């Protein structure tokens, strides 16, 4: 089943075109990796999926992006509801300068998910457990989230995102600021999260794409060159460019 369908997506930053006619389907409950050299439009495409490009004044998006068969690029799309369904993890961990508890309770609070204090406590604990962070922080959830290590902060951000149970989680190079051990933890977590969420991850590391994803899309200079199952892309790509990139001949 296709969770997300992108059709003829073009993105412009001012006069410069960043994405050219992207057509891509993303399957539910799988991890889809987007790979490609820097500046090829992977992150831009990712940001089209929850309309984070709206924040950038000069950015113009055209084309159709359907999530659950609903076109999110319509004028009257409620971006608040959209982003509730499509969460996002950023390259640099960006916890709010508040306590760990408040970091996670913020989402349920603004969306009115928890009715009572005990329900909120449950959500916070459950989210932290799912993000494999509970054991490490359970004694200090009322201390600032910014006091955690980088890997913990990123898992806190993941916990924050899953606290409102999004259907899709977008990850923009979530491990690029982390050491190998923290990276391994996050990768393990991604595999776990796939049961309940559809995950799209932008990564610079091809080995990471091979490890965590079921499907892979290869971007180059704003075009989607090839997309398919990770196995096929890495072992038997149809395009010469993909072959060259995967084998490290460029990029």
């Amino acid at each position, binding site marked *: 089943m296709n969770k997300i369908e992108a059709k003829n997506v073009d993105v412009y930053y001012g006069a410069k075109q960043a994405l050219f006619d992207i057509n891509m389907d993303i399957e539910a409950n799988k991890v889809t990796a987007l790979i490609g050299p820097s500046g090829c439009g992977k992150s831009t495409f990712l940001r089209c999926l929850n309309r984070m490009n709206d924040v950038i*004044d000069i950015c113009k998006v055209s084309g159709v992006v359907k999530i659950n068969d609903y076109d999110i690029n319509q004028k009257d799309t409620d971006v*608040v509801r*959209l*982003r509730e369904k499509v969460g996002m993890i950023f390259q640099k961990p*960006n916890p709010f300068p508040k306590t760990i508890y408040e970091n996670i309770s913020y989402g349920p609070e*603004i969306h009115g998910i928890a009715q009572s204090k005990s329900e909120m406590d449950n959500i916070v604990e459950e989210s932290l457990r799912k993000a494999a962070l509970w054991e490490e922080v359970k004694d200090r959830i009322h201390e600032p989230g910014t006091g955690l290590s980088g890997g913990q902060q990123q898992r806190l951000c993941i916990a924050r995102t899953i606290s409102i149970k999004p259907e899709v989680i977008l990850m923009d190079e979530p491990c690029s600021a982390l050491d190998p051990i923290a990276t391994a933890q996050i990768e393990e977590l991604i595999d776990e999260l796939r049961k309940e969420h559809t995950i799209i991850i932008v990564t610079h590391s091809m080995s990471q794409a091979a490890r965590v994803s079921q499907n892979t899309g290869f971007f180059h200079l704003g075009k989607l060159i090839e997309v398919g199952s990770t196995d096929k892309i890495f072992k038997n790509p149809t395009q010469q460019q993909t072959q060259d990139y995967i084998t490290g001949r460029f990029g």
Partner: protein
Amino acid sequence: MGSLFSILVCLSIAFPVALLAAVYLEEFAPKNRFTDFIEVNINNLAAVPSIVFGLLGLGVLLAVFGLPRSTPLVGGITLSLMTLPTIIIAARASLKAVPPSIREAALAMGASRMQTTMHHTVPLALPGTLSGTIIGLAQALGETAPLILIGMVAFVNTIPGTPMDPAASLPVQIYIWAESAERGFVEKVSACIMVLLFFLIFMNLGAQLIRHKFEKKWN
């Protein structure tokens, strides 16, 4: 008392207006010629000599609105016009200093722009805004010229009960007394200056404490 009332009036007008203006300009307003124009004007206003604001107070508040002369209310409003640009500039600078990643985090959580601004950006920018406000108020507290123009020069020896009563303010008192050649006024002026200085130190100290408290909470 005259100074105190003026400053209170000034604070209660200038701070909210300046904060809202800064938030609008920084977070919501589109970047175009019109907002550029406003920005230039704000920077200009910050550099306008205070006596011009005094004239404005005289012309508009006293002549047009018919507010009572020599009252801290009029003084406060005039001073708030003067401090407004200073606070706006400080508030905008500290709003700018809030990392965009925090805004993105809140937006990605499905917070609306209003929620993002009110829950995250403004609280984070508040310490910086407060320090800007202090600078503005301290400047206003020591301001003499505009107050002379709106008539806060008369020697009033009663303590005002409300901001609507006539009152003298400290810097104006110093100005008048310093001109008097009679004996004993040197001491009076010195005393007055010391009171003003204490007032300023006290204010800055208090504000510094508030700032520290906020900064601890947010970092």
